[in-house]
């Protein structure tokens, strides 16, 4: 087991290095730079700025320095947010995005899984149609529309919740629902189709023939096997949702991390582009590793680390 995990970590580090390298050079290829605007800076001031942020060093030296600093988890100063480092930006934004994202994932699982199970068990009957109707809507309606509708009806018409901003449990409800719409619907569909597949398996027929109670068949033999695709989806979903959504955070004015994934590129804020990319990659790689480990726990067919022993 330890050996497997060590091997995976080594591979992950390699993947991270590739991501860092490709992102670093790709971002420098985009035309434009961090200190440009409709108003040009006088050349001497530009020179001061470039010197301060070491942008006039040769590119390879900048790359080497970045890697060295990265090993110490020093992500460098933001060019745009003066006086703040990229570490500061992540430390401030991530807990907020993660709290919101965590709740959204809970909603998706608590609603999506039961909805999928019920519609599979009642296939072709009204609960199935109802659940699939809503999940089709959930998949096709983008989060910003859901967010706008929620804000219009719940805040503007009914005055039940504050329209936007962050800081109290009241502020969490609407963005969490908006954020969970798509994953809930996706999980429900995933769960349904995977349940249907499992229900058609021979071992279920065997279990039935043995005369096991229905509840045991569904709980022990069906759901346990059917949940594997959901667990697979949960890895990348968690990484994506915990790091924040640009759209939802923008609409509800939430000071999370999501906006930096988009605005840093417009601003050519190189250190922030690198920082959030590295951070997201680490999260994604780690969660995928956890998902792979979870398979071994959930699925008896998968043996990750017995092969050689």
């Amino acid at each position: 087991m330890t050996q497997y995990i060590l091997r995976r970590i080594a591979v992950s580090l390699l993947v991270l290095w590739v991501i860092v390298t490709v992102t670093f050079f790709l971002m420098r290829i985009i035309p434009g730079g961090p200190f440009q605007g409709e108003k040009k800076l006088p050349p001497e001031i530009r020179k001061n700025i470039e010197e301060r942020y070491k942008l006039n060093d040769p590119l390879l030296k900048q790359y080497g320095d970045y890697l060295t600093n990265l090993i110490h988890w020093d992500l460098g100063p933001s060019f745009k947010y003066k006086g703040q480092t990229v570490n500061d930006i992540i430390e401030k934004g991530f807990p907020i995005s993660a709290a919101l994202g965590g709740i959204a994932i809970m909603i998706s699982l608590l609603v999506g899984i039961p909805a999928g199970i019920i519609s599979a068990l009642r296939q072709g009957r009204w609960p199935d149609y109802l659940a699939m109707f809503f999940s089709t809507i959930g998949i096709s309606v983008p989060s910003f529309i859901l967010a706008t509708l929620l804000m219009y009806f719940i805040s503007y018409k009914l005055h039940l919740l504050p329209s936007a901003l962050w800081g109290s449990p009241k502020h969490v409800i609407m963005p969490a629902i908006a954020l969970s719409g798509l994953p809930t619907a996706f999980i429900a569909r995933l769960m349904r189709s995977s349940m249907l597949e499992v229900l058609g398996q021979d071992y279920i027929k065997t279990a039935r023939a043995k005369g096991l109670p229905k509840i045991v068949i569904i709980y022990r033999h069906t759901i346990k096997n059917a949940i594997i695709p959901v667990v697979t989806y949960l890895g990348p979903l968690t990484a994506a949702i915990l790091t924040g959504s640009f759209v939802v955070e923008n609409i509800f004015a939430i000071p999370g991390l999501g906006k930096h994934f988009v605005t840093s590129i417009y601003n050519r804020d190189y250190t922030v582009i690198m920082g959030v990319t590295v951070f997201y990659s680490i999260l994604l790689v780690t969660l995928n590793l956890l998902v792979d480990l979870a398979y071994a726990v959930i699925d008896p067919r998968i043996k990750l680390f017995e092969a050689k022993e």
Partner: protein
Amino acid sequence: MHIKKLVVALVVVLSMSLVIAGCGGDKPEAQVDSQEMVVRYNVGTPPETIDPALSTGIPEATIQAQIFEGLTRLDENQIPQPAAAESWEVSDDKTVYTFHIRKDAKWSNGDPVTAEDFAFAWERALNPANAADYAYQLYNIKNAAAYNKGEITDPSQLGIEVVDEKTLKVTLESPAVHFLSLTAFHTLYPVHKATVEADPEGWSLSADTLIGNGAFKVEKWENNVMEFVPNENYWNKDVVKIDRLIFTMVENENTELTMFENDELDMTHTAPLAELERLETEGKLKIYPYLGTYYYIFNTQKKPFDDVRVRKALALAIDRQALIDNVVKGGRKPALAFVPYGLPDMDGSDFRENGGTYYKDADIETAKQLLAEAGYPDGKGFPEIEILYNTSESHKIVAETIQEMWKQNLGITNVTLTNQEWGVYLNSRDEGDFMVARAGWIGDYPDPLTFLDMWTTGNGNNNTFWGSEQYDRLIETVRNSSDQKERMTLMHQAEDILMENMPIMPIYFYTDPVCIKPNLKGVKKSLLGEVDFSEAYLE
């Protein structure tokens, strides 16, 4: 069994996230007490920095305007009035300014505001190690440019002299008539020396160390909400009527409007284009003047724009009033010249009104005639041209309208539109890789020079590749003159030359439409966009 564990784990994570979310603290909406006068304003984008020496944007300037005060303040007519300085003397040759700081000018922590604080702040803005974007705002001061460029390293050679605790003597490179307006600008605000020295990078990031000398002080700043209370040490505290000022940082303009209409805001920083008409009829809209021009630039190196007749024909053939009425709205004014309204001329009257207009809006007759003279009667044989703009719905719809007007009015049918992401678009403009490009210019200071000095030959902001020696000479004379009458006369002449050559096609003068509660009075919004709440009150 394992499923049970999974469920337990999920529930634990859920409750943890609820706890984390709940830890945010008090709710940021105003706890409106019946006695407390609370004003809520949305500044828009969260500030990049509140450090007056380093910031460049309008949301930043608005926040700073509440908590800092320069030596002077501009009144509604853009005339500098005493602020942190109670008086000043100017030498006859207008190169030496001696400021007398008020005896009762104090920082929000009670320390006196001293000449040393100003000298420290200005040296700091000029220090090349701090790499301030706006350091050039101080280049009028003797040796400032040399120090900022690293040609001299001793800050004591700067023309900034602390005569005594309350007297600051400033020596300029050359006479600068707008220096007293500059001292009202945020780059020249003082900073509290001891606090900044203790934490040069981080002092402006926290409410505890944001010490200012303005009408308000920051009480709390978290989660995109900044709360101010009156600064009891402000020399002019009697004018401050509101008890609590709340700035929210909501970027999305539709959310901002919902908050306004839901009584969560008293004033917004903008208004969505699609809602302008409705808001105006409902009496929620107020249109403030704004010192800016929206225009197109021609690449005069490329055919057919090397021919002034073509440039003029294109500029005359568009119907600006129709564009404003049907597309851009918001009370914008057709730009029939480049320098916008609102800038004082020599006698205090309006520079634009004195200068008049240079052409008629939608002068299709003349446009057709010019185009025919240039060899393209009714648009025949006109080469394919392209309008470049940065990706945005509002720029797109303007470009489409102009494309249609050129087609209808001049018979030019082969105009294509290209949009590029902001950084790429700026790069294309710099490299001259365009034919016609969208542009916008917002003034830096209330003097027509901020609109005219950018068109000198080879200026970094002049992407048209047009240049005129005569124009350059006029601007050079204006820069070195302290005689307002001479300056203004020459600037009118410079604008004549610019409009005679038309390397640019002015489209409209900006305005600043915002939503404001009818009972919110006394808000001052400058031509440059910043908002001042020091004398605001709710009726």
